[in-house]
């Protein structure tokens, strides 16, 4: 059996025996700086803009709705089932489809839609990153297939960085089969190291903080 073969060879190479407990692991290293909300928002926006993402600070849910409405206009969009998008009234915009729970239907919609609109579970200030867990509210495809991704983030979910995220979520797998970190638009530099945005994922990203 390959399993026994590989494990046996591993143990033999290391001089370990079956079921031998591991040596004590080096302690977890997480450094969480104290940064106030305004500074976190400023950093988040600066990082996203650095990566050619667009940012908008919405004073209210209605403001967020107005921003999205202006952006989308008459074009097609798919919004996730996040309650916050409904609260903002984004899910009811005329060209926005939302409330889809069927994977095949969602796939067909996302393959054609111009915009994908999601919430985010967290945002990371120091790298300009969005954190999305796959769930009943958030599908994976909406932030991936359409050429433009709009994320509506609640200011309270903005963390200082990766360390704070992993201290809040020490075991992401307990919560979802997929946690994705998104930092700026999809990009490549595979030909002559020239930067091109929008390869497979969205080439444009808008982050709205409410």
């Amino acid at each position: 059996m390959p399993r026994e073969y590989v494990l046996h060879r591993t143990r033999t190479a290391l001089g370990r025996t079956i079921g031998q407990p591991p040596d004590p692991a080096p302690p977890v290293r997480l450094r969480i700086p104290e940064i106030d909300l305004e500074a976190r928002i400023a950093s988040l926006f600066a990082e996203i803009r650095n990566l050619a993402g667009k940012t908008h600070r919405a004073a209210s849910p209605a403001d967020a709705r107005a921003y999205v409405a202006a952006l989308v206009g008459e074009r097609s969009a798919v919004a996730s089932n996040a309650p916050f998008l409904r609260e903002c009234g984004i899910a009811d915009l005329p060209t926005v489809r939302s409330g889809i729970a069927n994977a095949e239907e969602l796939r067909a919609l996302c393959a054609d839609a111009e915009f994908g609109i999601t919430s985010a579970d967290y945002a990371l200030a120091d790298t300009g990153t969005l954190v999305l867990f796959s769930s009943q509210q958030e599908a994976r495809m909406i932030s991936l297939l359409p050429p433009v991704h709009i994320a509506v983030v609640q200011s309270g979910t903005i963390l200082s960085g990766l360390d704070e995220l992993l201290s809040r979520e020490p075991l992401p797998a307990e919560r979802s089969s997929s946690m994705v970190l998104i930092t700026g638009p999809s990009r490549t530099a595979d030909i002559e190291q020239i930067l091109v945005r929008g390869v497979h994922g969205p080439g444009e990203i808008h982050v709205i903080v409410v």
Partner: protein
Amino acid sequence: MTGAQEQKIRQTLDDANLQLAIYTATGRLMSHRKAAVAEDVLPDFQELRTQANLLKRHAIENLDHYLEQFESQVVAHGGKVIYARDGAEASEFLIDLAKKKGARLMVKSKSMTTEEIDLNERLERQGIEPVETDLGEYIMQLAHERPYHIVAPALHLTRYDVADLFTRKLGVERETEIEKQTKIARAVLRQKFLAADIGISGANFLVADSGAVVIVTNEGNGRMATTLPRIHVAIAGIEKVIPRAQDLAVFLKILARSANGQHITVYTSFLAGPRREGEIDGPEEFYVVLLDNGRTRLLADREKRQSLYCIRCGACLNHCPVYRKVGGHSYPGVYGGPIGAIITPQYLGVTHDPWLPFASSLCGACAEVCPVKIEIPKLLLALRSEVVQAKLRDTQSRIERLSFRVWAWAMRRPRIYEMLGFMGSALLGGEGWIRRLPKLLSHGPLGAWLSQRDLPRLPARSFRQLWRARRKAGEN
């Protein structure tokens, strides 16, 4: 070094355009890295390197434990783990799976491990179509070449090469604008993503406490390949396992920075098992293939074991004066540069590669930039000494073979044998022991052999002489 390799090196050195391409690309990666790990940008970079080294050492020294923990967590989240001794076994699993599920089209996210085991060729032979989806890898697949660099596979090609390739292989009109070339690839590959039955990925990390596969990409192909097809298969070397999800706080900060100066890649996917109850999308089946392919051989070597810490950032390639001249296709196997010189012979199952460890100026740049602090020059030196030892052993055994041939030849010729014996007893005859040879014979292997041993002196008269004397006496 094989003749083909030598020729490849000469070609690379003589090609001014290629020299410029390698020099510029690696130079740019170096300067981006330098800016991203600068003191004012990442003050604790050195601390992170130390921690990364400690974590990798711990994971490798307790690898069997973490493999089993990883496996049980994958299973707990509804996935399956398959162990593979080598590339053939890993491929067989995929081929069987494809047959069982009626799958013909597979999309692949960038993976050096699948390059290592020639997965594409093995699948193609079975009538399965594997499609590379990272732009650089896709270009390499169309060109039937292997990646030139761990993180920049098509580093050696220009936009004009790509234009020709696309025209020839995709039947599109010649397009030399890079942005439009990217759009062409996007359109072709989008259809493949939507039609594929199985998505194959590698893994940057396997997280033991979560049973998760972590994949970092910039283009989004990693997410596509693990979201759209009904089945996701990750193929990873056993050394990729790290203890905890929280350890990613260390590794994710240094991986992209060391590779190309990004603070973090655009996408980092943390994937644990298939789609769960209530989740809308994601694969229905989730498999992780854990590959040995020579890794346990490296593991058994206390010193070289640390080469398994490698997180494939490519920094040692960019900083290596030899790689920067000879390029990525001059090395045997898919891993070039300093780290490749150490791991390739083990993965290929060759004990000693006579030239690889010498393809280094031992300037130490690789060790200085390695984010997990692998002592690459030290390992290269150890490999050099192994090569020299092996050569020495080879010479000695050749002398031994030669001596026995002379011996056998003389034994079959009694006259000559007797004459040699005569000379021997004249030279080394007498009573007692031979402790040392005459000066003339004391060098070389015979002298070395005698330095630990004594020989009885040759008797004044040989057996044959005595026999003849006795017979003569009897006759009389």
